């Protein structure tokens, strides 16, 4: 699975996710990536893209939960990401990346690692795995 989240110069957010799914999966199987609100979500507060165990991400509507935690509980982006990863996945393994309209970038995962990278206008750039 691959994904990208962006906030542009005007403060608008967007998210996109794409995947081949699971190795040896049944034909016809649909995972979380195409499900808006689970694998992908964007609104005027933030944008989120998820990856990992599809069932856990679907049941927790993980991407929308990050946005809802910011909207209704007033959490910051990283607080919302941390809470969603820690409290919403039950036994599931997953990771996500997110940006907010204020130009913040955040990520979280409870797997061994997540291929990820981020950059901001002030010159910060990071690529990580573990």
């Amino acid at each position, binding site marked *: 699975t691959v994904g990208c989240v962006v906030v542009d110069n005007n403060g608008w957010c967007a998210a996109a996710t794409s995947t081949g799914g699971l190795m040896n999966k049944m034909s016809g199987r649909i995972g979380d990536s195409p499900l808006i609100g689970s694998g992908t979500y964007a609104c005027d507060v933030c944008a989120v893209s998820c990856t*990992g165990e599809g069932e856990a991400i679907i049941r927790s509507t993980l991407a929308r939960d990050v946005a809802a935690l910011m909207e209704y509980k007033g959490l910051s982006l990283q607080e919302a990401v941390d809470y969603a990863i820690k409290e919403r996945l039950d036994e599931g393994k997953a990771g996500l990346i*997110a940006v907010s309209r204020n*130009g*913040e970038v955040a990520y979280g995962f409870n797997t061994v690692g997540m291929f990820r990278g981020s950059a*901001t206008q002030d010159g910060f*750039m990071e690529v990580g795995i573990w």
Partner: protein
Amino acid sequence: MRGWAIAVHGGAGVDPCLPAVRQEEARRVLSRCLKKGAAALQAGLTAVDVVEMVVRELETDPVFNSGRGSALTRRGTVEMEASIMDGRGRRCGAVSGLSTVKNPVSLARLVMDRSPHSYLVFDGAEEFAREQGVEMVDNSYFITEENVGMLKLAKEANSIMFDYRVPIPGVDSCSASAGLMGATAEGGLQMNGLPISMYAPE
């Protein structure tokens, strides 16, 4: 407002024993895509155009599980899916079950921009792709030697692999080996020749 920002991912559940050369390869692809997205944002492109452009780049590179290099179904074919969402107006588009569309994320964008729906799948999505004239290729384009080998291992291990690792024989739970769906024999209920518990985590 701190200005523009971008993040990319290439999947979670990384194999702890991933060889260093594979790690470097993944970092290189992520850096390339990140720089491409950052340059586009610096040039003033909109968020939704940049996420589509960056995910297309990631789909085209066989390093990650999407587009070319996608995981294989138990039949040895590729069925891809993608979605895109624009926070400006909360517009969205999604596709599933694609087998010949070169860049699934761009078809999802067309579902968002040029269809009355938000989600098209399988034959309907492929028909829409033909109508829209997006680039279509043979299913074999998406299949890599490495993934054919992975599928063989998965079948031998009788498992559905979420992070491309062969389950350790006798693994009795997914959590015991991060990101794996080892065959756990809870009860006799089977689906597709596998214990039903296999699918719960998936």
